[in-house]
């Protein structure tokens, strides 16, 4: 089936073929850094929607996102992304054309303007040149940086830089969007707008969001996984997690979903 994304209101990307396969399919994925087992037998399947990744520091969230972003090649297991095998060079290139990625450490060229920076990555993503300018303008509009489009990156605040990072990730209307701590530095108003953008992207793409902010997951995600010591110790929807923490006082935390998160982690650590 050919989906013409340009037919949707406010989208610019060129027509492309969708496979209908799950966005992400992982089987027994393992990876170690020296003696540290960063990923320990991950099995995961995810389709269209927003998938939240929660977990303490060092749980393996960033490593998992880097593996999904084709940056890191796991030492064991198989990964299929958008129905394609990233071990095959041609298929990896097809995946990367359809990928959006915001790393935890977002680097930038200080002398580029916001527009130039996003345009640079739109071109590297091999978007058709005739679509690039309008696509960049749309990405800038979506993150609310219209008044900063011609501002140099070095003049932006931390939150604005994060929004530029999000814009470069979504400029190609990705089918697989990976965001590592996207809300760091965003003010409350921007976080609300960002959740709306996440839900919008999740209607047509597989979106993975790694975050420490449980409330972002509760509001914006269709599914959630909790990672601990390189493994997924919980998977369900935010309501399931909230139900786990329904009893005040158990698991710590101010809200039910925070208590649910605490209980899942405590249970995983006892095993």
């Amino acid at each position, binding site marked *: 089936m050919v989906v013409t994304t*340009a037919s949707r*209101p406010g989208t610019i990307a060129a027509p492309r073929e969708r496979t209908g396969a799950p966005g992400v399919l992982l089987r027994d994925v393992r990876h170690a850094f020296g003696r540290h087992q960063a990923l320990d037998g991950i099995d995961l399947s995810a389709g269209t929607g927003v998938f939240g990744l929660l977990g303490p520091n060092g749980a393996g969230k960033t490593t998992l996102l880097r593996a999904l*972003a084709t*940056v890191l090649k796991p030492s064991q297991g198989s990964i299929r992304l958008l129905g394609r095998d990233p071990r095959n060079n041609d298929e990896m290139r097809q995946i990367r054309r359809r990928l959006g990625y915001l790393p935890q*450490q977002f680097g930038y060229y200080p002398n580029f303007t916001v*527009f130039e920076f996003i345009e640079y990555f739109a071109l590297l*993503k*091999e978007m058709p040149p005739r679509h690039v300018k309008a696509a*960049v303008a749309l990405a800038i509009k979506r993150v609310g940086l219209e008044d900063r*489009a011609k501002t140099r990156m070095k003049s932006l605040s931390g939150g604005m830089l994060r929004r530029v990072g999000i814009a470069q990730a979504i400029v190609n209307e990705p089918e697989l969007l990976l965001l590592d701590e996207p809300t760091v530095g965003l003010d409350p108003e921007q976080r609300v707008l960002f959740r709306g953008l996440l839900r919008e992207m999740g209607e047509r793409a597989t979106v993975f969001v790694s975050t420490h902010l449980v409330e972002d997951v509760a509001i914006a995600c269709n599914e959630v996984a909790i990672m601990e010591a390189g493994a997924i110790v919980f998977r369900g929807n935010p309501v399931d997690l909230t139900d786990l923490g329904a009893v005040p006082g158990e698991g710590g935390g101010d809200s039910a979903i925070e208590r649910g998160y605490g209980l899942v982690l405590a249970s995983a650590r006892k095993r």
Partner: protein
Amino acid sequence: MTTQTPSSFDPGVTEEEMHTLDVNLDRVWLGVTGTLWSISTSRIERVAGSLLRSPALARALVTTPSLIFSWILASAAVFILGAVVANFTATPVVPLLAPALAGVAVAFAYGAGADPTYEISRTMPTSARMILLLRVSVVFVTNAILGSLATAIVPGVADVTMLWLLPMVAISLLGLAVAVVTHSATIGGGASLAVWGVIVLAAQFRTDQLSAAVSQSALQSLAPVYLLIAALSLGVTLWMSGDGAKRRELAGWL
């Protein structure tokens, strides 16, 4: 005179068509805004884009800040060394090592430590290593042009410089072509090193001198071979960079 109330007003188009009209206006706005916000493409970038058949590679070539310092550093190192050798010693080891020095300078200018966007760049379909290989080739081609210009001014310097520059232009273009064909910059880089190693060792085997490959006589005898390698490699790269229809057209023409 009758006036139409909003409820009875017939715009002549269906609601769906009105929606399409909105979308088109939105797209027009985005197109206009994008053009206003962007900076016009430089002539160098346009030429590079048509030569490489890739706007992405052209942009990566001309705008990435990490390139500029390394380019200047590599060129300066090479030409200063060349001048020192020409004026103070006759040591032939430097021309043998200088290409590697320039290549290493460029290679180390690209990576997590030097390129702040390295992590994102690694997820791009336009390979970061391919960009690096392209940059190396362009550095050597530029240095070859500068070396040729220097011939007219300081012949002694130019001789020493050109002894290794012509081979490196050919070798780096060969590496680029191999990388494009195999979709692997590692194989391309390996092919470059292997071919250069074979040339150096073959010249040493014939003359019993390590520096024979960068001697004046070797350059004179091998210059046509280097030029042929460079031309074929460039042709293959351009051919592979084009789309299927253009490839078939070029194949038919050949």
